[in-house]
């Protein structure tokens, strides 16, 4: 008998019973909701005459459609956004669940506030009707994105009927070069294995390069596992993670802490564990990356030219991407003028991300006519950044300094960058019209976005450190 993977241990510990050869009834420890999809789940459940089984396990935040302009309230630029906010609030109050409403210091993007408040913990199962829930696997929890019907199921039963995913380990050997960030690593991996490269698999990231990442950098990496079509991502929790959680709002208290840590220390794949797939990535080969097309897999090193059209169906997709993005095969992206820069989202809007961008912006200003926006990932990140004066650096550089939320990570009919505008962005998706109808999105790290904002065109951040 070979050993168990970290995933096997989490799965077994939460398996109430097996339903058939592939599917089990899995106990769910925490449920997160937001106003974009959570309101509808709670409302539909209530309309079916069903109750939330354990409201203490359910946390709701306002992040997706709320405005991020200063002085915001329930009114939104998105035409029907107010309805999402008020209906989610009403449903949350009626269900008796915990709500981090507008104005609450704990409000923010769901995948940022959950670790911040220790709602997610190593060894827990956590679900949220949002595809980037995989972010939270960075803390050693089995956390994955679900649809609304599944959210109703989890709310009503504290379980889900889950088809067991296959396992895959991505071992990242060596260490990231100084110039490369966790975002560059994430883009490098999706460019290497493709946007369906981990379909049906739970990906465990392991290896020295992962151990060396900070807890926040691990979240950036795991955030983009959904761009590989993974079931979710996982990283075995270590001392950094334990230290991260100590003293946070919903972390185990003093009387339970030692037990918790003892349990968490067992959350590793056994040395002889067998994975369905194994991939090795050499961190030493990772350099600053940027996306050129309309899928995260269409990413290249900053110093590479835009790839040419390939033969066959992939070539068709590439030609479409070239046309949409207004880039030419064989041309460099460096030097391409940009209209806007966006620093935000659950990928790259935690305190360490803002610090890295601010270090580049300090004493510099953004190019004339360029629109630059910084949206902290949570109200807490915003407050901490302000306490150390980062907001002033962003403002002095010419950035808008916003309230916390998803903001222009995605376009829901509210604010957008506009058709044909070229945006360099710290977000995770560059799909057609993701940030606005016809908007052209280039994904990159906070450093690359900050440096490009200063230059007014795409640049390599290495010259700006």
């Amino acid at each position, binding site marked *: 008998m070979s050993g168990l993977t970290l995933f096997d241990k989490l799965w077994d510990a939460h398996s*109430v019973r097996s339903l*058939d050869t592939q599917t089990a009834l899995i*106990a769910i420890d925490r449920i997160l909701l937001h106003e974009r999809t959570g309101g509808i789940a709670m409302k539909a459940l209530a309309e079916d005459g069903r109750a939330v089984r354990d409201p203490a396990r359910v946390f709701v935040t306002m992040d997706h459609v709320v405005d991020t302009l200063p002085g915001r309230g329930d009114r939104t630029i998105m035409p029907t956004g107010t309805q999402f906010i008020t209906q989610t609030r009403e449903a949350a109050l009626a269900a008796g669940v915990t709500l981090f409403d507008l104005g609450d210091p704990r409000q923010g993007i769901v995948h940022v506030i959950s670790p911040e408040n220790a709602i997610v913990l190593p060894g827990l199962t956590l679900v949220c*009707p949002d595809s980037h829930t995989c972010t939270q696997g960075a803390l050693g929890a089995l956390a994955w994105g679900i*649809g609304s*019907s599944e959210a109703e199921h989890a709310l009503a039963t504290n379980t889900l009927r889950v088809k067991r995913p296959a396992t895959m380990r991505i071992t990242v050997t060596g260490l990231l070069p100084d110039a490369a960030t966790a975002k560059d690593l994430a883009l490098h991996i999706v460019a290497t294995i493709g946007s369906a490269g981990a*379909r049906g698999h739970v990906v465990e990231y392991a290896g020295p390069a992962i151990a060396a990442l900070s807890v926040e950098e691990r979240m950036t990496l795991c955030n983009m596992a959904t761009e590989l079509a993974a079931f979710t991502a996982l990283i075995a929790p270590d001392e950094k993670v334990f230290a991260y959680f100590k003293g946070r709002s919903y*972390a185990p208290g003093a009387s339970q802490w030692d037990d918790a840590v003892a349990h968490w220390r067992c959350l590793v794949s056994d040395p002889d564990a067998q994975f369905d797939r194994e991939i090795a990535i050499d961190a030493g080969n990772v350099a600053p990356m940027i996306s050129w097309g309309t899928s995260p897999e269409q990413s290249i090193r900053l110093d590479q030219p835009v790839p040419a059209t390939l033969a066959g169906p992939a070539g068709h997709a590439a030609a479409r991407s070239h046309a949409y993005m207004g880039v030419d095969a064989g041309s460099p992206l460096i030097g391409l003028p940009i209209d806007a820069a966006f620093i935000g989202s659950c990928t790259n809007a935690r305190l360490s991300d803002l610090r890295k961008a601010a270090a580049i912006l300090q004493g510099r200003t953004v190019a004339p006519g360029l629109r630059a926006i910084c949206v902290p990932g949570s109200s807490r990140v915003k407050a901490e950044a302000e306490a150390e004066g980062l907001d002033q650096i962003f403002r002095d550089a010419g950035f808008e300094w916003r309230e916390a939320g998803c903001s222009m990570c995605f376009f829901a*009919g509210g604010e957008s960058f506009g058709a044909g505008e070229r945006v360099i962005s710290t977000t995770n998706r560059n799909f057609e019209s993701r940030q606005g109808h016809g908007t052209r999105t280039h994904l990159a790290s906070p450093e690359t976005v900050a440096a490009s904002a200063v230059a007014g065109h795409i640049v390599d951040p290495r010259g700006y450190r």
Partner: protein
Amino acid sequence: MAFQPVRTVTSAAVPLLRDNIDTDAIIPSREMKSVAKTGLADGLFAGWRYLDEKTRTPDPAFVLNAQRWAGAQILLGGQNFGCGSSREHAAWALAEYGFRAIIAESFNPIFHGNCVRNGILPVALDAVPIAALDAVVHIDLTTQTVACAGQEWPFHLDEESRAMLLDGLDPIALTLHDADLIAAFETHDRAARRWAWEPLEGSLHD
């Protein structure tokens, strides 16, 4: 919520043969205007379907607008169909528009689950047979086969999804049969993993 069971689907199949058709493309976020599961068919593929979204002027070049595919219940796609956001609105919009099955090379897992829960049969087939489906297509879930123009190909759907689609089952009702088992599991877990439960009890929870 229960839906119409799906055993067979017989229809022309609309070829939208692109890879990575994401849920933003299927139902753009701007088309999700209310806190409801309905009223979405009009927004299906809005970014591709209309020359002008405001006036809803159809783009004659987009496949769904061709007269030949009016009323079709099967949609064909490429690899990684339904990637991107987990929004179930994508499945609701497809179902409301009238699609009962999607045949694609592969599916995003969340989207796959959302289809099954809303009475849309996801069929994974290779590119070659998909390209050949240019006459009336007959999908039979009981035999797990796709037939077209005298040819037949097998496909596989996992047991749980199959049972749900064939019977139009409500998974919540199904799971509630195990309520005692869930309660017993929790009683044991609450003692074994005090640290996971204690933070949710008492004064911290507000």
